[in-house]
């Protein structure tokens, strides 16, 4: 294996993957445990303790798989699970899956701990111990071909598809050429681009799979009667789903598409991957992703160390687990929300830079973030997290042809 060094100090995990952060995740396993988990986190918020969780009381295979992938993500060093006690989530199974990776993991069940106050006290003691253990995590060098980068767009407008999205595409092209792994997503935002995208598939079979995944998204959204399109998109000059799609599609750059993955699948080698976020089968649990953070959580569950977030109208979110780099497409939004943005791609519209230049700027910021520099949303304490219900069929071998 070769490849240039991304950072001399990454956190080595037992499965060989490496993290660019070393956080403790505190996880509530039902909404009823959310308050207790948040209170446990409160004094440690500035010390790399992130809160995430699942609200539902009913068990769901997708949610379990997502949570297992997230709790064993290379940016996560230790996990504290907080359960009410009577919810349907398989807390023992999750605890064991995390411990199998060698991570520190603890479980508190509120109904067994004496209630709210006692659980908060016990949780804070456990967190303090975990943070001490994490100080001794083995650090090693990490190459750029070990990096996974996900991309998402949110709050898109008529500038997104002209500046930020294609600039991310340039950064992706460079990363893929360095054998890093890049993931783009939201098949519902590729409606109208399927015929163009298919020509970039690594094999003919994969081309069919990509086309089918977009057709599935079109059916799904048609049943719901609503595309992946918000009123702010129209205010910003986007008129139709397919117009938004063409802009979103440009985030993928121009590399060949190596495979299609589903939430929780971790690409096994470098290349460009499409993450299919739309559930399989009949419409069952509502909108595929209720907001941008549900998509970000899925990109992270696929191993993304860092997320490139293109925004035109001006999203301010970050995420639990992995840093989010905000690439602002609209120069006016950048002036309006400078504290929330990392990169001003909108300057291209004012003649102050080109796509290649902004693409290079994104690439070098990824390297600095991998070396510990906090992103704007990270420094502001944004740690949004959303996980809902879905159902998926596992991917077949033709989804990942380059691996065989």
């Amino acid at each position: 294996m070769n490849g240039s060094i991304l950072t001399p100090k990454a956190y080595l995990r037992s499965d060989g993957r490496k993290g660019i952060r070393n956080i403790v995740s505190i996880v509530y396993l039902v909404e009823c445990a959310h308050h207790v988990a948040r209170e446990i986190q409160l004094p440690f918020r500035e010390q790399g303790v992130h809160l995430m969780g699942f609200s539902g009381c009913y068990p769901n295979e997708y949610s379990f798989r997502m949570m297992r992938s997230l709790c064993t993500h290379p940016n996560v060093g230790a996990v504290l699970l907080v359960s009410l006690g009577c919810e349907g989530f398989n807390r023992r199974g999750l605890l064991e899956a995390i411990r199998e990776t060698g991570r520190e993991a603890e479980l508190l069940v509120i109904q067994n701990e004496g209630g709210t106050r006692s659980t908060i006290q016990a949780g804070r003691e456990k967190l303090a111990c975990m943070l001490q253990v994490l100080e001794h995590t083995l650090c090693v060098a990490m190459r750029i071909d070990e990096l996974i980068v996900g991309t998402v767009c949110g709050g898109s407008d008529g500038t997104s598809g002209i500046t930020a999205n294609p600039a991310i595409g340039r950064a992706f092209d460079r990363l893929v050429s360095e054998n890093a792994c890049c993931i783009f997503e939201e098949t519902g935002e590729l409606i109208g681009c399927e015929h163009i995208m298919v020509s970039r598939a690594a094999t003919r079979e994969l081309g069919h799979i990509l086309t089918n995944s977009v057709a599935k998204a079109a059916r799904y959204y048609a049943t719901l009667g609503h595309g992946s399109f918000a009123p702010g998109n129209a205010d910003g000059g986007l008129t139709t789903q397919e117009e938004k799609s063409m802009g979103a599609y440009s985030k993928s750059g121009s590399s060949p598409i190596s495979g299609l993955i589903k939430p929780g699948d971790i690409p096994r080698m470098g290349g460009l991957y499409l993450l299919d976020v739309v559930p399989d089968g009949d419409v069952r649990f509502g909108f595929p992703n209720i907001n941008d953070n549900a998509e970000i959580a899925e990109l992270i569950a696929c191993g993304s160390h860092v997320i490139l977030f293109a925004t035109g109208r001006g999203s301010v979110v970050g995420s639990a687990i992995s840093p989010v780099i905000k690439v602002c497409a609209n120069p006016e939004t950048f002036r309006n929300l400078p504290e929330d943005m990392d990169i001003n791609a909108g300057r291209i519209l004012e003649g102050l830079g080109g796509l290649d230049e902004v693409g290079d700027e994104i690439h070098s910021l990824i390297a600095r973030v991998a070396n510990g520099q906090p992103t704007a949303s990270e420094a502001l304490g944004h740690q949004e997290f959303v996980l809902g219900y879905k159902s998926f069929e596992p991917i077949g071998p033709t989804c990942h042809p380059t691996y065989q």
Partner: protein
Amino acid sequence: MLSTIRLFPTDNVLVLTRNFQAGETIELGDIHRTLQTPIGLGHKIAACAISPGEKIQKYGAPIGSATAPIEPGEHIHLHNMKSDYLPTFTLDEGREFHHTA
């Protein structure tokens, strides 16, 4: 600096790269069109005359169809084009609209 861009040679729309105020004039070759309403950065105008039913082309790809005759330089948005796939949902002063596909 240009205030409109054509993203692909075969596109029949141009994208505004700055905000235009009502009363400003957009020049397309010999055609001069004075705007009745402001049009925001990122919005589209017609690069040529477009007939109802004709595809709107942007990024070199169809992004929907015209629903009314569109004059060169005219603002193209929900009032004169529609999706070929899915309805578009908007909010206007607190009122909900579902623009049909």
